[in-house]
């Protein structure tokens, strides 16, 4: 039976009804990193803890990837089936800006400052038929914005 497997351990809580991105916070200087790391790149301290970064944020900058990247890109796509995807940094309530794929993929759909929602999505299928899951952000729908 096929399963849904995170692309890398420790990037987000999974499975979960409301997944969160995971990062680390330095107990000495309070700076936050994504992905979580044991060392602090701000103060060189070695005392960090894993923290939830949230599942909502605002878009800090963005672009659109229009051509299929070379290896190490590893999806199920072919040159023919490739579709452009957005890429951006999303400012998280946990105190760090996280680089991510964005589901809006046209310049009309993207703007600095727009509210974004975390999604855990299937990215490719492995040899055993398991879905490899990664994180991405989509625009917050109007009716969700006030939840």
């Amino acid at each position, binding site marked *: 039976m096929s399963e849904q497997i995170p692309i890398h351990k420790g990037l987000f809580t999974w499975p979960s009804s409301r997944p969160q991105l995971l990062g680390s916070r330095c107990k000495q200087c309070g700076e*936050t*990193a994504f992905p979580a790391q044991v060392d602090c790149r701000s103060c060189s301290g070695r005392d960090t803890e894993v923290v939830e970064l949230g599942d909502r944020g605002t878009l800090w900058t963005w672009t659109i990837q*229009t051509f299929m990247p070379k290896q190490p890109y590893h*999806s199920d796509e072919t040159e023919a089936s490739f579709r452009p995807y957005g890429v951006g940094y999303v400012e998280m309530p946990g105190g760090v800006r996280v680089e991510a794929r964005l589901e809006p993929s046209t310049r009309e759909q993207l703007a600095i400052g727009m509210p974004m929602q975390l999604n855990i999505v299937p990215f490719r299928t492995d040899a055993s038929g398991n879905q490899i899951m990664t994180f991405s952000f989509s625009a917050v729908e109007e009716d969700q914005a006030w939840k």
Partner: protein
Amino acid sequence: MEVAIIGIGLHRFGRSPDMSGLQQGAAAVRAALADAGLSWKDMQFAYGGSQDAGNADSLVNELGLTSLQFTNIWNGCATGGSSLHAAYSAIKSGQYDLGVVVGFDKHPRGAFNPQPADWGLDDWYGETGLMLTTQFFAMKIQRYMHDHGISEDALVRVSEKAFANGSLTPTAWRQQPLSYADIANSAMVSDPLRKYMFCSPAEGGAALILCNADKARQFTRKPLLLKAAAVRTRHYGSFEVFAPSQAMHVADAPTVTASRMAFELAGIGPEDVDVMQLQDTDSGTEIIHMAENGFCEHGEQEQLLRDGATQIGGRMPVNTDGGCLANGEPVGASGLRQVYEVCVQLRGEGGARQVPNDPAVGYTHVYGAPGVSGVNIITR
């Protein structure tokens, strides 16, 4: 004691299908030696590097096995700047009087494809399509345009100038000028950057002969002085390529630090510079680097470009040989091409692209992954 540049050599950038990258490096060294009136056996030391074309010290197989000290340098886009810094330090220390720095490369066509593990990152980052330099440069200028009121017009003008300057440069890869409309209507690659706003990986070689300045007049009547060579890495918080996350507080880029250090070493300021080379792997970075190197305030670039200030006849000529946009980027050679071009300008040998009024002070700047900058200041 000061350090002089007494010979310069270039193997033309672009595509040389019949030559290996190493051979292009050797050609550049021979050209620099001929320019200085010296031979390979006169060289006491060498520093060199390439990304994709082999170990620089293999050049001794082409140039001669003379037992000199040859150290390979690899530091991303700052490889040339780092080689030059090493040579500068070797002469300043008093250990050597005369040596060569060389950079060369030969990349396959298309965008670079760096591997996450080489940069201390996990595989998911590359597998999911986040590890492209083109994306980073697009996102940096996207935010910069938002913060500082730069428009797409400015991006077009940088490319227009680059290809105009390339058309005046016999060694440039791209020698056809492109119209404003050609650039503004070219395919969008990574919003807001279009096809003709990106440089391409390429081939080529560049070399410089360096000498203790006290002895330089034995070899040439027109030595140039390498007044400063500075290489710096990123601070916490600077917005860099290959970064899965970015701190909330945005710190100065490594370019700012390297630039300040170089000006301090040279004892001059940005207002004293007559001709400059600023890393332009895309048109957005040239705009950002104008301010990060201290040549204008953030946001002033829009008007400066509209006024033609950075053109060859302008008050702050930038990338007079067409820069990376018109020459392409053989990573190992690119930083030394910048120094070569500034030396050509300071000698008054620029021909159709010569900056008027006898420029006396030149400046070069590279920036590369994952956040390293090299700055050199050269004077007559």
